[in-house]
């Protein structure tokens, strides 16, 4: 461990660890690729060994030894309790209401935690055509609640989305209910700077906890709207030595496995 004043972890490690802490041992979690996948597996390897991780490729209760490169890696299938066809995954397991937490990332998010992974610029004349929604539109509405994890910056935390790929809290307040959606939607947004939660009434994302060493100015400068802070902001507890070592071992195993494949 470092003895200098500089934290002995990176902002991304802090983000992954806070995201992992949000998961419970009895959760059934639909895992998005990238940052969510690292967080979900860190949870499984630390405080939530009983968690059920599900990837949209059809793998149920998968326990990958290394982080997958994609949502359809052989590692996910080999270590899963079972692998079901993709239509069954979306019909029975997701639409059927079996998932407690959907864990998503995105290219853009707005103050009501709506997400864009489709396009930057107009849909028909895009500046940047992104890969698209994949499973996200229905993950966002069918899981009992949704956690989102993204690196925070003005280009990703925007005042107005170019496209609403998946519904967060829409225009706020009871918009989800008015659209006939009965699930909670995004309840936490975990970034490399802070934890945001929707205000209970307005549903606007509000800073609920700040990570060690992060200032309010930093958060405001990294948000494309005038971000609100909760009246009682918590301090995110720093990473424990166990969290850091398990996360780093996981990344090291993943890198070694990928290098061996070359």
């Amino acid at each position, binding site marked *: 461990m470092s003895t200098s004043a500089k934290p002995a972890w990176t902002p991304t490690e802090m983000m992954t660890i806070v995201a992992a802490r949000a998961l419970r041992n009895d959760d059934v979690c639909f895992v998005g*690729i990238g940052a969510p996948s690292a967080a979900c597996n860190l949870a499984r390897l630390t405080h939530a060994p009983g968690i059920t991780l599900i990837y*949209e*490729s*059809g*793998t149920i209760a998968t326990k990958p030894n290394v982080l*997958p*490169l*994609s*949502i*359809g*890696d*052989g590692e*996910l*299938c*080999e270590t899963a309790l079972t*692998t079901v*066809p*993709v*239509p069954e*995954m*979306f*019909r029975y397991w*997701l*639409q059927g209401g079996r998932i407690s937490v959907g864990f998503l990332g995105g290219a853009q998010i707005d103050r009501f935690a*709506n997400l864009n992974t*489709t396009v930057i610029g107009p*849909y*028909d004349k*895009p500046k*940047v*055509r*992104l*890969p*698209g*929604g*994949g*499973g*996200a*539109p*229905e993950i*966002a*509405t*069918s899981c009992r609640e949704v956690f989102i994890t993204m690196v925070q910056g003005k280009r990703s935390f925007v005042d107005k989305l170019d*496209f*609403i*790929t*998946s*519904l967060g809290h*829409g225009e706020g307040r009871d*918009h*989800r209910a008015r*659209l*006939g*959606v009965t699930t909670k939607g995004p309840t936490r947004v975990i970034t490399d700077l802070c934890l945001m939660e929707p205000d209970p009434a307005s549903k606007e994302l509000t800073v609920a906890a700040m990570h060690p060493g992060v200032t309010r100015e930093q958060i405001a400068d990294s948000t494309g709207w005038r971000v609100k802070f909760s009246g009682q902001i918590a301090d995110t507890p720093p990473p424990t030595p166990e969290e850091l070592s398990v996360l780093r071992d996981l990344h090291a195993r993943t890198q070694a496995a*990928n290098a*061996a*494949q*070359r």
Partner: protein
Amino acid sequence: MAQFLSLAEAVEDVVRDGDTAAFEGFTHLIPFAAGHEAIRQRRKNLTLVRMTPDLIYDQLIGVGAVNKMIFSWGGNPGVGSLHRFRDAYEQGWPRPLAIEEHSHAAMANAYEAGAAGLPFAVFRGYRGAELARVNPNIKSVTCPYTAEVLATVPAIKLDAAVIHAQKADRAGNVMLEGIVGVQKEAVLTSKRSLVTVEEVVDDLGERSFNACILPHWTITAIAHVPGGAHPSYAQGHYKRDNAFYEAWDDIARDRDSFKAWIGEHVMTRGPEAFAPYARAAGAGRVA
């Protein structure tokens, strides 16, 4: 009744100009060799369907074989964007590309509806999602029992389905194992189908009573193409060649380097070069 053909004969028979076709696979068992054969045979005016179009669709789009793509997630999995897809859609090179975009749930339901012989799929989806605004094929229906409003999309109906599988027996029954995606549905909703396989065996051997099997009478043509899914993976045979997926990001970024790659690795090589190429590229062997 499945006919055993060479890859060239099989693609000629199954995939035709102007077809609505799917070269399906969900990260696993992507039929790359068959896609390359379609490029060599200069197929054109295709409408390509796929949940997760990746490198082989980037290549088909880049050579100008595709008029329209129906999809739900178009990227280089684990790496980033599809540059040939973006160039076609954003700049119209080498020809304009129309798109019809859905969510995974919609596509999976639409494949299943097609396999089930239904005209459309119904599901709880697209609520608050903007795709419903830009895709006129996304509609809704009111449940006659509960009055719940549900999303609908047309069933996927294919002229041609192309998939890759681990094995076929000599009668032409095909078995898929691992992540099976929507391949069974794609074959069952197609007029013509081609399955490329890693191996042809006397007997499919010991298997689960519930193994994913396509009976020979559901398939038009089978071609024995070991390594036919490279650079994707075939569970039990070889791993994903991730270095190639990363390398593709540079190859496809530039029109000239893309054309050079297609010229060298697809146009001047037959399918017989595929397995050795897969091995030479270092596709990890199963221990």
